[in-house]
């Protein structure tokens, strides 16, 4: 536990100084009439409250460290991640949520336990201190790509519907006719993740690594974690994007293989 004590505590005065920093964006907002002062106060407060609550809960969960509770916690995270993804898309949340939740859970949990079991070789693969933050990183970092995949894919078919329908007429199966669209949306949603990996360590020090270094961890150990987590994030992202595309292919088209309109938000 000696390592953890190395971190400098942030006290009440620290928070006051932190809040003072917000004056700068407020001034910018005031001058340019951005109208985000009230909004940012609300959002920063909300964030603080959420994180504070999470901090409290995590303290308890880490303390108890019961495998069942830890896995349950991961499922709650999965539910919110899936919900957030769907809310960010043009699709109605309701009809997609159950299928997506099941598929995302399978993909994330597989990668998660592979990571704790085979990569960092924990004695207890359910260890809360590892399981929960890593699950959070996997889900959080693949979220955007999933939203992009869902939106782009359906919109691309919609924009080029003539092409899709002609292919069907010639005799393509739905999957054959949609294949180029699937390729395109996967590529465009994975591009940021790839770009992110390409600049890692040069342009910026990623959050986890920074955290570990601040926590007193040897930088070499920190990069080992960073490398493996980035690969795990990439794999989770690919699986997530694949799931999104498959779900749209299955649910977005009717028995005539025509696009279903009423799956979109009104």
């Amino acid at each position, binding site marked *: 536990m000696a390592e953890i004590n190395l971190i400098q505590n942030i006290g009440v005065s620290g928070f006051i100084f932190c809040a003072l920093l917000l004056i700068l964006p407020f001034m910018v907002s005031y001058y340019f009439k951005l109208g985000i002062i009230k909004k940012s106060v609300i959002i920063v407060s909300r964030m603080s409250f959420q994180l504070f609550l999470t901090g409290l809960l995590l303290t308890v969960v880490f303390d108890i460290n019961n495998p069942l509770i830890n896995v349950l916690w991961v499922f709650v995270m999965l539910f919110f991640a899936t919900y957030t993804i769907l809310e960010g898309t043009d699709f109605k949340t309701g009809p997609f949520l159950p299928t997506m939740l099941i598929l995302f859970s399978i993909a994330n949990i597989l990668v998660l336990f592979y990571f704790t079991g085979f990569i960092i070789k924990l004695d207890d693969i359910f260890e809360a201190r590892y399981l929960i933050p890593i699950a959070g990183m996997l889900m959080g970092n693949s979220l955007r790509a999933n939203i992009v995949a869902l939106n782009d894919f359906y919109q691309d078919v919609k924009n080029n519907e003539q092409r899709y329908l002609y292919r069907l007429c010639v005799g393509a*199966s739905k999957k*054959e006719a949609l294949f180029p669209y699937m390729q395109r949306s996967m590529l465009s949603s994975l591009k940021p993740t790839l770009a992110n990996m390409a600049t890692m360590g040069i342009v910026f020090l990623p959050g986890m690594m920074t955290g570990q270094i601040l926590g007193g961890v040897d930088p070499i150990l920190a990069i080992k974690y960073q490398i493996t987590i980035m690969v795990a994030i990439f794999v989770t992202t690919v699986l997530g994007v694949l799931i999104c595309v498959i779900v749209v292919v299955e649910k977005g088209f009717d028995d*005539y293989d025509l696009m279903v309109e009423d799956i979109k938000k009104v």
Partner: protein
Amino acid sequence: MYMGKNIIEYRDLSIIHSHQKVLENFNLIIKEGEKVLIRGKSGTGKSTLFLCLLGLMRPSKGDVYFKDLPVNGNSVSVVRTKIAYVPQDVDVGRDSVNEFFDTIFSYNAVGFTPDFEKIQRLLEWFELDDSILKKEFKSLSGGEKQRIILILSLLLERNVFLLDEPTSSLDSSLKSKVVDYFVNDPSLTVVVISHDPQWEREGLRVVDIPNK
């Protein structure tokens, strides 16, 4: 008179599109080997007859049969593989003509790749140069596009043709040539929508779609 099997049948077909009646209680039977010219002002629903048969549009009422098989969710994918459809406009993205052909013939249900000689023969027949295969489809003229789509429809080796204004951008000698080809082959069942007078000839049954 030659009485073949029913190939296409529209039974009490009604189509309402964006709150407007496009077709009402339309009935038509097309027998094997028949050549049918469908005429009517624009907006009378000529093209929608094709779309309903291909399952690209659901009729509001009534049924469509292909070889006595009702067109529905179970049959539509099979029906699509039996028909050579030439739409007015085809979008193939940024593919070259060659890539476009390759894509179409990569589909499982299409099931074969045409000989290059056959493609060459058809290009020659349609008065096109081989070099067109390397060109981007999008960059072709209207008449060239139309001929490529016609060539593709012939390469598919299907017996039922739905042609939607297939000759509108061709010059008149080529128009007659295309009409000859489709009308003179007794094994083909051909339904054509066209305003070209070349199609109005003996042996062709004319169906007028009434104005609403």
